[in-house]
């Protein structure tokens, strides 16, 4: 043991420096994206640029929303993602009052976040018309509509209702139109194709613009705030991996609107994987080659199953470890019982998605927030059933156990828990089946699982993909049921199974 301390120190130093060297050579970079196709493509782009710059890059795809990504970026769970200036000024920096590009950049810098120059497209509200109809009337800008008061306008219901939607548009441009209706998004596109309506609202980089051959009308009186796409990344990247920061900056001004609409159309309408779309863009624009790996159906199923099982099993194990003892205490003390059941009951009333998002500031993204939220959800049925199971033991049984001279610990182990076991197991089963369902929400925070294909399927309108997540999730719920029926045979005494009631 004490043979040669100097040698040990040397070896340790060598190991440490080796470790540092490999860490430098292979900086790990994580990019993120929001849950809509354009942003997923851009997240892929960033990851591929980072890999090209020598980093080991990973893309956390379609995370739940702006808040989740912003929190993840601040915590360092991700290093970069593509944001929009309008979102930055109105949601993320709303308190600071920053509106111009320079103000936003300064406000972000104060929080340790770097914002690149705009990438070249502005994804904001816009109005669109069929190219031929617009040409026929000679309309290129929104103000031109004023001279055509008899055109039919059809807007999505959201746009009709929002204060910054139709009401603002009407007032700002003094539009005289009488025939205005609210429609579903898909119906609006179909209506415009068939000529039932002439003008609709859209996002300026929607894939449908190309598909339906629409003309986007210029916002000549600047009503809609700009939503210029920019890369936001952690400023520590500039020391940690300057090549990666430089690579991100290469995108500045290189993604014009037409380019983005084209990429969106390929992914959304032609169903080409986002990775492929991003790789093609990099190859043509920067002559950068990147590998496109498309998993087989079976590989995805395997990956989703193991991620899903991990979430459920860890949360359930932690839940059992806390809920069963809590239930035992609750069965003994009236007040403690009411407090425990009250608290775990309140947890169940918090919407699952909200609970998930609340966990992010505490534990970041990926599996931890999902496991924590699932754990909290699992408590109520297990605490309640443990408590009920023990309380429903007949007084005479409890009395004879005590009168035999069993200590309270021995009575718990030898009499109370075995008698309460059917109830406890039923509680664990309820929790487990619930968790299998809830765990699909883990995909919102990058935890993977069966929610991943469901989320992608919803985003791409792909029923097959939705089934790829929904069917195994339902199957796993059934298997879980079955496992517990079997477990009952092992864990519940035959004497209780002969007569299901212990009363």
């Amino acid at each position, binding site marked *: 043991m004490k043979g040669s301390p100097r040698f040990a120190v040397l070896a340790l130093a060598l190991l440490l420096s080796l470790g540092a060297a490999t860490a430098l050579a292979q900086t790990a970079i994580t990019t993120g994206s929001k849950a809509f196709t354009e942003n997923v493509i851009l997240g892929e782009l960033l990851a591929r640029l980072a890999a090209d710059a020598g980093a080991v890059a990973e893309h956390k795809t379609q995370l739940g929303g702006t808040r989740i990504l912003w929190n993840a970026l601040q915590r360092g769970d991700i290093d970069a993602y593509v944001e929009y200036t309008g979102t930055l000024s109105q949601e993320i920096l709303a308190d600071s009052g920053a509106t111009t590009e320079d103000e936003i950049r300064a406000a972000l810098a104060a929080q340790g976040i770097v914002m690149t120059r705009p990438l070249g497209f502005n994804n904001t509200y816009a109005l669109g018309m069929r190219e031929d109809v617009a040409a026929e009337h000679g309309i290129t800008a929104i103000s031109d509509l004023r001279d055509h008061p008899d055109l039919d306008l059809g807007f999505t219901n959201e746009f009709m209702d929002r204060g910054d939607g139709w009401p603002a548009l009407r007032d700002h441009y003094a539009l005289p139109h009488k025939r205005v209706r609210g429609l579903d998004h898909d119906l609006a596109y179909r209506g415009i194709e068939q000529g039932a309506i002439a003008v609709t609202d859209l996002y300026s980089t929607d894939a449908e613009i190309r598909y339906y051959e629409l003309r986007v009308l210029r916002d000549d009186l600047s009503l809609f705030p700009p939503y210029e796409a920019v890369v936001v990344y952690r400023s520590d990247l500039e020391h940690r991996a300057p090549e990666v920061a430089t690579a991100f900056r290469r995108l500045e001004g290189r993604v014009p609107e037409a380019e983005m609409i084209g990429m969106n159309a390929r992914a959304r309408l032609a169903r080409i994987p986002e990775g492929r779309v991003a790789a093609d863009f990099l190859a043509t624009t920067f002559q950068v080659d990147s590998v496109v790996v498309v998993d087989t159906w079976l590989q995805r199923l395997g990956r989703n199953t193991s991620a899903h099982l991990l979430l459920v099993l860890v949360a359930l194990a932690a839940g059992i470890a806390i809920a069963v003892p809590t239930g035992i205490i609750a069965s003994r003390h009236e007040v403690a019982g009411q407090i425990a059941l009250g608290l775990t009951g309140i947890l169940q009333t918090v919407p699952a998605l909200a609970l998930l998002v609340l966990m992010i500031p505490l534990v970041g993204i990926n599996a931890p927030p999902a496991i924590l939220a699932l754990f909290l959800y699992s408590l109520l049925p297990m605490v309640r059933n443990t408590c009920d199971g023990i309380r429903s033991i007949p007084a*005479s049984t409890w009395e*004879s*156990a005590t009168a*035999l*001279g069993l200590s309270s610990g*021995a009575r718990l182990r*030898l009499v109370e828990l075995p008698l309460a*076991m059917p109830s406890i197991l039923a509680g664990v089963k309820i929790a487990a089946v619930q968790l299998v369902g809830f765990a699909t929400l883990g995909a919102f925070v990058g935890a993977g699982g069966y929610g991943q294909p469901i989320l992608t399927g919803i985003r791409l309108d792909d029923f097959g993909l939705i089934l790829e997540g929904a069917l195994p999730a339902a199957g796993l719920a059934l298997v879980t049921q079955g496992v517990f029926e079997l477990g009952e045979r092992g864990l519940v005494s035959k004497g209780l199974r002969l*007569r299901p009631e*212990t009363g």
Partner: protein
Amino acid sequence: MPPTDELSPAFEMRDVSKTFDGVAAVAGVSFNVAAGSTTVLIGPSGCGKSTLLRLMVGLLTPDRGEVRFGDAPITAANVTALRHRMGYVIQDGGLFPHLTARRNVSLMASHLGWSADRVTARTEELSALTQFPADGLDRFPTQLSGGQRQRVSLMRALMLDPDVLLMDEPLGALDPMIRADLQQELRDIFRTLGKTVVMVTHDLREARYFGDAIVLLRDGRLVQEGPFGSLVDEPAEAFVGDFVRAQQMAREGADA
């Protein structure tokens, strides 16, 4: 077999009271249970018999007064150890439904670390004593008849060879035929073992059959204590005579 030598009493109740929600279940009761004797607690329903028995086995603690076992009061500190010297049988047997008859009987002994051989030998000895069929030992309580359950309950109470047996209407749930058989067997067992027995019943004939001493209660109060003859010959108050007559009439009515 009345006690021959005057040892210190097995139980001593000193002015014991227990109140539930303002209602006195037991009020100022004092009596002694002589070692080796059988004492029967009797009285109308709700008079406090079960409560008194629970106080003796330490399931309840008195609000006032003292319950002494041997020569020391029962306290929270010694109650678990003292219980190993008492056997307690309750009305419906109170068997553990998740354990076989054998495990019900041996649970405490195994927990105390008895060897498997010793446990088996003792269980067989007791099943012979109580005439419990050997093939019933590996059945669960729900698979046994009422009389068999009662025997298992008795075996469980006798397993550690306790000094005293406390029985709350041990024969209450049985039909009259089996009841008569078991009465006789029980008395034989008590005589064989020479144990101190405290038994609750509301049947005066049973009390007379078993009791060296009878403790008659009414509304939580001790009315009279002594051998059966003294209750008939020297009633302490009118209620004693009424109680004895009511029991005899009920029986004649049943026999007619």
